[in-house]
């Protein structure tokens, strides 16, 4: 596949034939019965930005963890700058010039930036000289690469974007030549993401090699020189970015033509089901997460909320679902079918919300929607276990729940169709089907649904989208929150864009464009007053 053969590897090679910065040959890794990486080959040229794209669970992170010494591959060979190397731990990786920016930052939150930078890379047993040197070096790096950050600030006080800069600085301080970034833009606003890309371009121009792991096609097209696609643990293609198209990459990613369009008839909205008025939420750390938003959802329509994650959508869903973060202060008004909901008192819990006709497929099914150790049948009653259908005095009506569970498993094609299997033993898609079955079949007047297809295979995505549209067609209201713009655009009847706890505007999915939504998601709006209204 690759033309380079480093077997002879003599110094006679001309400069343009320099060995690649990274070369992986036949890397395989299994976790128990799961084959996470299968015979992976990868070549990344020095001084380039290489994208690795694939769905959740395709094995991208595992591969990079192997490169960073977190996991030992079962077989295969790694070469850095043409030299074979055994990366047994992160120290070896760092010494080989590899730096990694993880999706979840590895920072000590009550340490200062400076302390975080030197951690593990101190000059000697005393801290003072290390800190002084780091301070100087940090100033140089900041100027060189637009990486300004206050060295004496503690991490807790920094924005997410700045925390990421600290991670990049950590790698550069360790003189990394190869920088791996795992889903770096997931938590960034478009403006912050642009800034990051500028930094990355600058680093490449300095001769650094960058690997960008992402599942966003747009980013790949925008910044990478070459791109590899992973699918189910295998490397299915490596191409030059200029010679491919988003459509081709998407197809490679999922393995067949993607049907992003959802088949649905025009909405016939009825009376308002949910009316939100001037809703505010201030969290435990006194940060205003939702800043006075107002909107309606009517019967028979799907309202999609677009936005970069971390702009208040999660808080909105949790608040509507009756479980805002502990210690949060809520004000404003919410009407459900014309009657106001208790926002902070005894009747503001999730059980009461369900009784008022609000179903909820939460963003995080493993941490919220399911009890992973419970059997599938037990999970079918989760949240509704006190309803008359599922209970009998103080007792749980196990027979009724089981019967219902068997029906749901059949109707939603949950595989394997075994109600006794613990939730954790189902695939992501099948777990989600259990949650969706539970919430949709209660026939709620309002369905809250967050990231419905995150980590879900294509087949299940279509199935879940169909159920959502069916619920709408049955005259119910749906509030959809997703960070996947494509999903929002194809499923919603109206789109609201959230940014920094405010609604930046409303758009019609038929007439708007991804570009227009992207601007709103970045906080750029033509009608700035709307959010505060």
């Amino acid at each position, binding site marked *: 596949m690759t033309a380079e053969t480093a077997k002879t590897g003599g110094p006679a090679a001309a400069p343009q034939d320099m060995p690649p910065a990274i070369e992986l040959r036949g890397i395989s890794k299994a976790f128990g019965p799961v084959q996470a990486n299968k015979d992976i080959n990868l070549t990344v040229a020095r001084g380039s930005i290489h994208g690795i794209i694939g769905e959740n669970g395709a094995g991208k992170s595992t591969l990079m963890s192997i490169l960073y010494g977190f996991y030992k591959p079962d077989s295969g060979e790694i070469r850095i700058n043409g030299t074979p190397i055994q990366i047994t731990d992160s120290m070896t990786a760092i010494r080989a010039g590899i730096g990694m920016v993880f999706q979840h930052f590895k920072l000590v*939150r009550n340490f200062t930036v400076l302390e975080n930078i030197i951690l593990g890379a101190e000059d000697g047993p005393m*801290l003072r000289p290390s800190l002084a040197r780091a301070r100087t070096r940090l100033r140089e790096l900041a100027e060189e690469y637009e990486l300004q950050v206050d060295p004496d600030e503690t991490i807790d006080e920094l924005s997410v974007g700045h925390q990421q800069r600290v991670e990049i600085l950590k790698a550069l301080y360790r003189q990394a030549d190869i920088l791996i970034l795992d889903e770096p833009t997931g938590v960034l606003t478009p403006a912050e993401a642009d800034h990051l890309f500028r930094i990355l371009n600058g680093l490449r121009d300095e001769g650094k090699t960058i690997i960008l792991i992402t599942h966003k096609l747009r980013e790949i097209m925008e910044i990478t020189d070459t791109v590899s696609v992973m699918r189910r643990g295998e490397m299915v293609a490596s191409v030059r970015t200029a010679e491919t198209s988003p459509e081709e990459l998407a197809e490679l990613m999922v393995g067949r033509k993607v049907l992003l369009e959802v088949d649905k008839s025009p909405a016939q909205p009825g009376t308002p089901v949910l009316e939100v008025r001037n809703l505010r939420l201030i969290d435990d750390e006194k940060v205003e997460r939702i800043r006075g938003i107002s909107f309606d959802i009517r019967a028979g329509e799907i309202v999609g909320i677009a936005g970069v994650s971390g702009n208040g959508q999660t808080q909105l869903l949790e608040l509507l679902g009756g479980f805002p973060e502990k210690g949060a202060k809520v004000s404003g008004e919410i009407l459900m079918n014309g009657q106001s909901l208790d926002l902070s008192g005894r009747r503001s819990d999730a059980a009461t919300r369900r009784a008022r006709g609000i179903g909820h497929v939460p963003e995080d099914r493993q941490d919220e929607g399911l009890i992973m150790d419970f059997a599938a049948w037990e999970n079918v009653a989760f949240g509704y276990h006190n309803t008359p259908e599922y209970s009998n005095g103080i007792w749980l009506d196990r027979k009724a729940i089981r019967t219902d569970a068997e029906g749901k498993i059949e109707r939603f094609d949950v595989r394997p169709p075994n109600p006794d299997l613990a939730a954790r033993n189902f695939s992501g898609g099948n777990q989600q089907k259990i949650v969706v079955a539970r919430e949709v079949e209660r026939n709620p007047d309002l369905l809250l649904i967050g990231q419905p297809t995150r980590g879900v295979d294509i087949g299940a995505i279509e199935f879940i989208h169909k159920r959502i549209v069916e619920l709408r067609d049955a005259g119910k209201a749906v509030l959809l929150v997703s960070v996947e713009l494509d999903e929002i655009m194809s499923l919603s009847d109206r789109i609201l864009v959230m940014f920094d706890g405010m609604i930046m505007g409303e758009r019609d999915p038929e007439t708007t464009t991804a570009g227009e939504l992207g601007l709103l998601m970045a906080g750029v709006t033509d009608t700035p007053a709307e959010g505060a209204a």
Partner: protein
Amino acid sequence: MDFNTIIQILDSSVRLMTPLLLACLAGLYSERAGVFDIGLEGKMLMAAFSAATVAALTGNVWLGLAAGIAGSLALSLVHGVASITFRGNQLISGVAINFLASGLTVLLGQKIFGLGGRTPNLSGGARFSEIRLPFADQLRDVPVIGPIYADLISGHTILVYVAFLCVPATWWLLYRTRFGLRLRAVGENPASVDTAGVSVTRLRYAAVAICGVLCGLAGAYLATGLSAGFVKEMTAGRGFIALAALIFAKWTPWGALFATFLFGLLEAIANRYPNLEIGPVTIPSMFMNALPYILTVIILAGFVGRAIPPRAGGEPYVKER
């Protein structure tokens, strides 16, 4: 209450706080590295027993001290294997260690000495003797400063001075050295240390070992300094008071000094006045004995300042993708 009484009470507080201080600092190292340790009690007990036994057999208190440290370290190793290597439940491991020490000390003591779990009384070179600081006697008659120097500061065993020196030493180690930076980091976010190429396991073992050494000093002091020999269950909950002091101290070295002094003072007062009369109210000694625990609960409840433990405390470190 005259000045001399106050000096006497303070002097006794210093003696009583010493094992608490050493054990509290021991817990500080372990918990700052993210390993909860409710086994301080057991380690102290084991150390007290080993120290007294070897001191009684050899007549040499220094060998006793070494044995005390070794005994405590052995239990630390068990805790390390359970909670670091096998990622077990740190609290349960601590409970087990307390019982292990409680049972083994009597079993071995009975085997070696046949005194129902006691060691023979220690005397002479088998005990730590009190150190008289220079000019203590000459200065005694100077008003105020004299008695403070001669009776309060002077006249303790070497381990008391070691314990007090451990406070600034711990502070320096934690906040001024590479080791301290890494230690604190591993208790807050072990992933940050691991991804920086530093071994979480090694750091945590180091912390647990330091904890063992300090508990060893604490136990040795109990059996060969404060008392003259080992008796069954002689720690009498001091390990738990040290744990309470650690929370009180909010996991800082100077806080530990203050908290253990407070608890030592309470014990000294309770010892001197079994039924303390304040005006018309008689405070029973039981109340004084329970006061450290009550105060700790109040602190834990966050009514007087919030005690926030190290973030990764109690969590075994598992590498994540």
